[in-house]
């Protein structure tokens, strides 16, 4: 399954820089250029200036102390550092048996992949034996409801919807009531794409979150933030602002089947420590995978584990 991720990565590497693997294969001397090479790789993967600097600084310190004898040792140290950042947030979604329904509220900026992720997630969770329904909480965008309806049909999950323009919170409330009436395990609610810097839209999201609590304050809720894997440093602001608004409990990163690396997740993990649940690696129904820190780092660095 990591094949696709890695393929993408090799492509970038060939296209832009010699890459780390070449460096290690090439049996170069350890010198400052290796740190430059690492810096380049990290920056190209959207790791960002701060985290990149933190990593290269600590590698530089280790090199100075002669702790890293050869190039593979440098690579191992680099990899270990990155895994150390991401391993703590590699926390799969856990679904308590009760109280029901478990709510997955899917949120994020426009076009990140929320609706598609819902389709894939529904498939995965149903395969795990959960009985669920989908709530068409995006009542704003043209054909958002139709899009979710197609996914519902595709994966065989009922979709609760009202008309475009309806109150999103009301649709989700309805869905919760319907799930409870049908004794279903969970509700996955779609929401309209919203940019995190739009106050009114974030207020609307808070209202949705309050409505869920109003339906039943005990309900376990996963507020799942969907991030586009191609997004650069702005993903940090997205995570921060959504987290501040309603408390994000999980992240799914989409579109990692291209050449984007999603390195900004390291900064998000360091700053916000929000669990990362899934990665999206395509548009098909089974293109959602659990997030695995080590695999993610290997794909990012373009090296075989």
């Amino acid at each position: 399954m990591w094949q696709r991720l890695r393929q993408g990565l090799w492509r970038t590497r060939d296209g832009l820089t010699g890459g780390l693997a070449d460096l290690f294969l090439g049996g170069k001397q350890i010198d400052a250029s290796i740190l430059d090479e690492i810096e380049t790789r990290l920056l190209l993967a959207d790791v960002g200036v701060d985290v990149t600097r933190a990593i290269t600084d600590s590698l530089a310190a280790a090199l100075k102390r002669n702790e890293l004898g050869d190039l593979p040792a440098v690579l191992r140290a680099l990899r270990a550092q990155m895994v150390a950042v991401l391993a703590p947030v590699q926390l799969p979604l856990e679904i308590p048996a009760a109280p029901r329904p478990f709510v997955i509220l899917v949120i994020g900026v426009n076009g990140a992949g929320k609706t598609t992720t819902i389709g894939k997630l529904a498939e995965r969770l149903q395969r795990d034996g959960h009985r669920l329904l989908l709530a068409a909480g995006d009542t704003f965008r043209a054909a958002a409801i139709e899009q979710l309806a197609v996914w519902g049909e595709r994966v065989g999950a009922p979709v609760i919807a009202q008309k475009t323009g309806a109150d999103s919170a009301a649709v989700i409330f309805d869905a919760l009531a319907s799930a409870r009436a049908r004794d279903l395990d969970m509700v996955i609610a779609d929401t309209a794409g919203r940019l995190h810097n739009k106050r009114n839209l974030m207020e609307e999201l808070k209202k949705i979150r309050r409505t869920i609590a109003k339906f039943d304050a005990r309900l376990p809720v996963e507020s799942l933030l969907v991030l586009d894997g191609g997004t650069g440093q702005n993903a940090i602001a997205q995570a921060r602002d959504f987290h501040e608004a309603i408390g994000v409990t999980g992240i799914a990163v989409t579109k990692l089947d291209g050449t984007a690396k999603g390195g900004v997740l390291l900064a998000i993990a360091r700053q916000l420590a929000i669990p990362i649940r899934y990665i999206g690696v395509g548009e098909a129904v089974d293109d959602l995978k659990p997030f695995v820190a080590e695999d993610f780092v290997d794909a990012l660095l373009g090296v075989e584990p």
Partner: protein
Amino acid sequence: MFDNLTARLARIIRDLGSEARLTEADIDAVLRDVRVSLLEADVALPVVRDLIEHIRARAVGAEVLRSLTPGQAVVKIVRDELIQVLGGTASELRLEGQAPVVVLLAGLQGAGKTTTAAKLGRWLIGRKTRRILLAGCDTYRPAAPEQLKLLAGENGLECFVGAPGQSPVAIASAALQLAHARLAEVLIVDSAGRLHVDEEMMAEIRQLHEVLRPSDTLFVVDSMLGQDAVNAAASFSSSVPLSGIILTKVDGDSRGGAALSVRHVTGVPILFIGTGERVEELAPFHPDRMASRILGMGDVLTLIEQVERGADREKSEQIARKVIKGAGFDLTDFRDQLRRMRSLGGLAGMIEKLPLAQFLPGSAAAQFNDRELVRLESIINSMTPAERGRPEIINGSRKKRIAAGSGTQIQDVNRLLKQFQQMQTVMKRLTRKGGMARMMRTLGSGPPRGFRR
């Protein structure tokens, strides 16, 4: 007020002495910050490297605009460079050739193509293009045809999405036929989102391009994209001949470095920005605004912009030439100077920000009273052109008329004429030493020669 001002200006010019040029140390220090700033803005690393090298070459030895510190001067060079890279020749749709003129939209998944197709349609309606056909060639995304149809319907646009089972290429050629049949002026074609590494899908966009022979092939790109924007842009650009870029979701708070990356690697202009989800939220692209946004560095940029806004190069050069030619500095020139001071906007506030402030005693800024400037200007406005050109003809009765016309007292007119005389004297002195241009610079009225492209 001008007694003090002219004296001070003269002193400043004397103090500045020899030309100040940027040293490599100045440049390196600032470029390190600029590099970080660009990377934080998501400008792709290879593009950052290109830019920095280019800027370094341009900055070494460049003259420092008097009113800026060396650091600010480097930032100004950087910003100018960004504006140049972001800008470009054409900044309109081409819409060339025989009707129906075809506009094809392509890009990564979720970039905003479908929304933008409707936005463009609406924009064209606003430009009096009546017969527009939208065509949807996305047969992959669930409910993609419905999305386009709904958007079209809401905006009174015709829409064609083909029949279920039809291939995108088949829909495209049918749409083209339909556009001919309906005598459409413009056919806007929406395509499915695709990854640049998806060879099949990239082959499909090439086919669509072949069938449609678009006048405009636009790359629609999310302004929040990171480093990967260059890879995507490069590969779309090598698959189909792009003619322009549309940058979406600019209403977010991303710094938008992707704009620079994409512009740099494709070499085609950014035509529009998407500023919201609603169909009317499409705006022309302004390279200068985007450059400032990408560069961050708010304070320095605001300052540079203020200096530039006040700078009316043409005008000050014109005056300088006139004075040098010995044609004299007349009241019209004086008025231009007053206006320029006023357009520096809150001159008092600005002066404090300038390094120039160190040459001025504390109370100096207070002399630049905006209301006073307005009054002086209105007095000059009440004069005839002849009076402005040859102030010596202004006699008692003329003064009375001018005072009445500008709502001032005769004393005010007298004072103005006296100030003008003093200014004229200074001008003459300056010209003799070739110091005119230099003084203009000090006033923020135009960058020194080294900065001109």
